């Protein structure tokens, strides 16, 4: 549940980054050869297709090739550290001395599958501060990812506009 909420927040963050990316003032195209408005629209359409083909960026569907976003896995169970560990250990009583021991001996049978050592099989637990550090690290990674995506989109848009401008210029329009 928490992970889902955080994931939604992350998607929102990325979306915000995408849609709030700075859109420079639209260039103007002046028909230097007296082209009609219909011709201009036709030229723009053809230049649009050419620029998309050249740059791989479609302003109508702005996407960039990015690696998968970092996982937002905190809040979910983590695999125990130390690959040797599997289950949980049980204990039993040893007279008065062992009265404080939790668990039971029967459960111990389930543990240690493939684990042949005592101290080497000790399993580390997660400390609260470690979890906080991991959450902060994941947040930073997600923010960095969103920033990279925003930069990539801006770069794609710039490339597209350059290509589009070149095309229009080649067809007899002055671009400003």
């Amino acid at each position, binding site marked *: 549940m928490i992970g889902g909420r955080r994931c939604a927040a992350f998607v929102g963050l990325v979306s915000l980054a995408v849609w709030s990316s700075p859109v420079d003032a639209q260039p103007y195209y002046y028909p230097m050869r007296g082209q009609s408005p219909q011709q201009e629209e036709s030229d723009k359409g053809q230049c649009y297709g050419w620029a998309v083909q050249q740059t791989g960026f479609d302003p109508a569907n702005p996407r960039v090739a990015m690696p998968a976003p970092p996982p937002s896995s905190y809040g979910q169970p983590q695999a*125990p550290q*130390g690959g*040797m*560990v*599997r*289950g*949980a*250990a*049980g*204990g*039993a*009583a*040893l*007279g008065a*001395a*062992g009265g*404080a*021991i*939790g*668990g039971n*001996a029967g*459960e*111990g*049978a389930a*543990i*240690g*599958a*493939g*684990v*042949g*050592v*005592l*101290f*080497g*099989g*000790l*399993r*580390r*637990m997660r*400390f609260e*501060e*470690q979890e906080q550090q991991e959450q902060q690290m994941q947040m930073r990674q997600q923010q960095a990812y969103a920033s990279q995506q925003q930069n990539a989109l801006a770069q794609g848009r710039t490339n597209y506009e350059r290509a589009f401008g070149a095309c229009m210029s080649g067809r007899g329009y002055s671009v400003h």
Partner: protein
Amino acid sequence: MSQGGTIMSRVALGLAVLGVLMMAIAPPSVRAAGKYDGSTSMVCAVSSVNECIATGRCELRTVRNVNFPGLVRVDVKGMKMSDLASEKPRESAIRNVDHANGKVILSGAEGDRGWILLINETSGTMSATAAGDGEGFVLFGQCALP
């Protein structure tokens, strides 16, 4: 000569009786001194476990949490420790045995961890540590002679 020998015999007998009497009336802790010295195998129960990390923070765990058996057989002569609570044997080889100030100190290494287990030879109280990279476990318990 025979009278002197008789006196000597009586003195020796008196000393022997005195010794037995002293042993009989001595407090149990004195009588039991050294019985947990590893000459016979022991069964040790872990009563508390603490896990510590490099920041200095430690948290109380249970044997269940940290996947450590609640009962461990300590066989100093056989140079091994084994899990009594599991059907699948878990063992630790004891690499070193030391005796110092009434304590038997066992140590070994497994994987990327080293460990030390100390038993009070008189009381059987047990303390153990297992240290890894940026981590440490401290265990306390009590040993008994089965």
